[in-house]
C-alpha cells in the first residue's frame, strides 16, 4: 500500500498541476505533492521492516535509502522553486507535472526489484526529465536537450541489452527466468559467467551514461548548464542516484555470482576516469554551472569507486550518496540564486557576492567547502572512507590517483569560485534584464539551500544511530543481496 502511494501520490498531484487554473494553485499542488511524498516515505520507515523476499517491487535497504534521499531532495527543490519561479514561465503546467512524474518514476525505480521494471522506470524518468531541460527554450537549451535525449536513449538501450545478457546468463539454469535481484542472487552460482560479465559491462556503460560517468558524461555539463538550476539539482542529486541504483543492482548480482572483483575493478576504472575528467575540465572553466556539473561527474566517480572497493568502500559510497544529494541540491540552489542576481553564467562577471548578498556569500562558501570535501562536511568522511578502503585492499595506484585528482578538483573549484564570493561587485553593472528577486523569494531560495547545507553539516558532524544504521544496512545489502531469512529458507528447501 505504501509502495503504491509512493508512486500514485506524485502522479495524482502532477495531474492536478495539469488541470489547476492559476499559477499559485499549481505551485501549491506541486509543493504539497512533494511534501506528501516525503511524508509517505517517512511513514515507510515506521512500518515493520521486513525486507522484500520476492515480487517485483519492495523496499530493500538500498532502495529505501535512495528513495528517502530522492524524496528529501524533491521536497527541498519544490520549496525552492516557489522562490525561483517566474510568472512568465511557458507552459508551467507541463513543467510542474513533469517534475512530479519524474519523482514518481524515480520512486518506482527505487522500489523495483525486477531488472526489467527498473529499466522501464529509469527510461520513464529520463523521458519525464527531457522537457525539463528544454524549459528555457532557445537554441542552447535545444542543443542540451538533444544531446541529453540522444545519449541517454543510447545509454538506456545499452543497459537494456545488459539486462538481456544477464537474463540469457540465467537461462543456463532453467526455462523460466525471474529477473528479480533476490532470485538471481540466490541462484547466482548457476549463472553463465561469460554472459554475466558482458551484461554487467553493458549495463555499467548504459547506466553510467545516465549517471554521467566519463567518458559518457558529455551531455552533463550541457544539460546542467542549460536546464534551470533547480532542475540541475534534481538531476545531480536525484536522477543520477536512480541510475546508480541500476548499477548497484547489477553489482549485487555479480558479487553474488562471485564476480565481485571483476565488477569492482571496472567500477574503479570508470570512477577514476570520471574524477580525472572532472579534474581536467574544472580547471579554468569560466561557467559556474558547467563547473558544478563537472563536480557532479567527479562525485559520481567517487560513488562507483566506493562500491568497487568492496565492503568497507560500500559504506563510504552510501554515505557519499547521501551527502552528494544534500550538497548538489544546495550548490545548484545557490547557483540559481546567483543567476537570478547577476543574470550571467560567466564566473568572471560574478564578483562580490558577499557584499551583494552576505547570506548567499556565506552559504556558497560553505557549499564549496562541502563540495571539495573539507571537514566537518560529510563528503570528507566518505572520501576518507574510500581512501582507507583502498589502502586496506592495497590498491595503491587507485588510492594515489584518487587523492591526486581530488586535489586538482579542489584547487580548480576553489580558484574559480572563491573570487565569486569575495572581490568587489561589478561597478557599472549593465542594467539586468530582470529585476532582482523580491525579498521573500530570496529568502525562500536561500532557506532551501541553507536547510540542505545545514543537514549536510549536521550529519557530517554528528551521525544519529538511525541514519548510520540505514547506511550500514544498505552497504551490507550490496555484498549480500539475499536477505538472511530468504537464504536460510532456500537452504532449508535444498536440504531434504
Amino acid at each position, binding site marked *: 500500500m505504501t509502495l503504491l502511494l509512493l508512486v500514485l501520490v506524485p502522479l495524482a498531484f502532477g495531474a492536478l498541476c495539469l488541470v489547476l487554473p492559476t499559477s499559485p494553485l499549481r505551485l501549491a499542488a506541486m509543493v504539497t505533492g512533494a511534501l506528501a511524498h516525503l511524508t509517505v516515505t517517512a511513514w515507510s520507515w515506521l512500518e515493520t521492516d521486513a525486507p522484500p523476499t520476492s515480487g517485483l517491487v519492495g523496499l530493500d535497504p538500498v532502495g529505501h535509502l535512495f528513495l528517502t534521499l530522492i524524496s528529501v531532495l524533491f521536497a527541498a527543490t519544490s520549496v525552492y522553486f516557489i522562490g525561483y519561479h517566474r510568472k512568465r514561465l511557458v507552459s508551467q503546467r507541463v513543467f510542474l507535472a513533469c517534475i512530479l512524474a519524474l519523482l514518481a518514476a524515480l520512486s518506482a525505480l527505487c522500489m523495483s526489484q525486477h531488472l526489467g521494471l527498473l529499466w522501464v522506470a529509469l527510461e520513464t524518468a529520463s523521458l519525464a526529465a527531457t522537457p525539463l531541460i528544454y524549459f528555457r527554450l532557445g537554441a542552447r537549451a535545444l542543443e*542540451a536537450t538533444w*544531446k541529453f535525449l540522444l545519449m541517454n536513449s543510447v545509454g538506456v538501450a545499452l543497459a537494456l541489452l545488459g539486462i538481456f*545478457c544477464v537474463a*540469457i546468463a540465467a537461462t543456463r539454469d532453467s526455462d523460466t527466468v525471474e529477473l528479480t535481484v533476490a532470485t538471481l542472487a540466490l541462484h547466482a552460482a548457476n549463472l553463465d559467467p*561469460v554472459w554475466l560479465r558482458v551484461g554487467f559491462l553493458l549495463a555499467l556503460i548504459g547506466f553510467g551514461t545516465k549517471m554521467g560517468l566519463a567518458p559518457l558524461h558529455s551531455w552533463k555539463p550541457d544539460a546542467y548548464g542549460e536546464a534551470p538550476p533547480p532542475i540541475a539539482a534534481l538531476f545531480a542529486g536525484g536522477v543520477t542516484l536512480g541510475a546508480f541504483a541500476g548499477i548497484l543492482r547489477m553489482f549485487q548480482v555479480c558479487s553474488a555470482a562471485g564476480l565481485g572483483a571483476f565488477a569492482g575493478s571496472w567500477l574503479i576504472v570508470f570512477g577514476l576516469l570520471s574524477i580525472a575528467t572532472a579534474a581536467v575540465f574544472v580547471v579554468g572553466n569560466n561557467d559556474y554551472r558547467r563547473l558544478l556539473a563537472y563536480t557532479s561527474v567527479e562525485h559520481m566517480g567517487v560513488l562507483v569507486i566506493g562500491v568497487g572497493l568492496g565492503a568497507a568502500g560500500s559504506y563510504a559510497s552510501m554515505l557519499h550518496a547521501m551527502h552528494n544529494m544534500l550538497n548538489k541540491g544546495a550548490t545548484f540552489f545557490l547557483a540559481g540564486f546567483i543567476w537570478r542576481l547577476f543574470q550571467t553564467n560567466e564566473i568572471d562577471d560574478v564578483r562580490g557576492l558577499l557584499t551583494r548578498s552576505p547570506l548567499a556569500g556565506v552559504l556558497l562558501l560553505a557549499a564549496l567547502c562541502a563540495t571539495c570535501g573539507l571537514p566537518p562536511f560529510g563528503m570528507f568522511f566518505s572520501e576518507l572512507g574510500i581512501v582507507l578502503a583502498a589502502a586496506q585492499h592495497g590498491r595503491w595506484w587507485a588510492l594515489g590517483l584518487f587523492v591526486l585528482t581530488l586535489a586538482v578538483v579542489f584547487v580548480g573549484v576553489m580558484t574559480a569560485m572563491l573570487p565569486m564570493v569575495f572581490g568587489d561587485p561589478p561597478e557599472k553593472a549593465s542594467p539586468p534584464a530582470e529585476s532582482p528577486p523580491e525579498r521573500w523569494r530570496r529568502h525562500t531560495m536561500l532557506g532551501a539551500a541553507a536547510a540542505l547545507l545545514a543537514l549536510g553539516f549536521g550529519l557530517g558532524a554528528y551521525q544519529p544511530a538511525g541514519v548510520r544504521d540505514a547506511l550500514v544496512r544498505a552497504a551490507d545489502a550490496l555484498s549480500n543481496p539475499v536477505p538472511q531469512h530468504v537464504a536460510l529458507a532456500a537452504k532449508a528447501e535444498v536440504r531434504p
Partner: protein
Amino acid sequence: MSPQTAIDAALVLVTLLGLGMLAVSRLATLVRFFALQSLLLAFLPLAEESMHGEVPGMHGFLIAGGTLALKVILIPYILSRLIRTGEVHREIEPFIGFTASVFIGALLVIGSFAVATRLPLPTEPASRLIVPVALSTLSLGLLTLVSRLKAITQVLGFLVLENGVFILGLLLLKQTPLLLELGILLDLFVGVFIMAIVVYHIRREFDHMDTHLLDALKES
C-alpha cells in the same frame, strides 16, 4: 521453406537493411528501410514459436502486433510526416562518407560475428544467427547515429540500435513476462515521440535539421 531457414533469411535481410541504411541518402528511403527491418523483426517471434511445431501463443502475437503497430506503422508515420513537412530530404554530407561507412559497417558486422563465436549460448537458440545479427544491428545503428548529421537520421540510428536489442530479446521470448516487453515498446514509442518534437523544434529554431549547428555548448 522451414521456419529455421525463414528465420535465418530474415536475420540476414535485417543485417543487409542495416548496412543499406548506411548507403542511402534520401531520408524517406531510410525510414522505409527501417520500417521494413522492423516488419521482419515483427514476424520473428511468430516464426520462432512455430519452429517447435506449436501454434504461436498469445505472447508471440502480442509482441508481433505491438512491434507492427509501433515500429512499422506509427513511428515511420511520424518520421515521414516530419520529413515531408520539412525542407530537408537528404543526408548530404555525413561525417563519414557513404562508401566509407558501408565498409566500416561491413567490418563491424564481421567483428560482431567474431565476437559472437566467443559468446556460447547456454541453451540452443532458434537460430545461430541471432546473437551475431543482434550485435551487428546494434553496432550498425550506433554507426548510423555517430556518422550522420541530420537529426532524423540520428533518430533512425537509435531505432536500429533498439532493433538490435530486440533481436537479442528473441532469445528470451519464452522466459520474460509480457508486461516488460510492452513497457519497453511503449517507452521506445514515447522516446521517439519526444525526439520528433525536439526535431521539430530544432527545425523551427535553425530552419533545418542539421545537428552540426548544435555546437554552441563546449568548453571554450
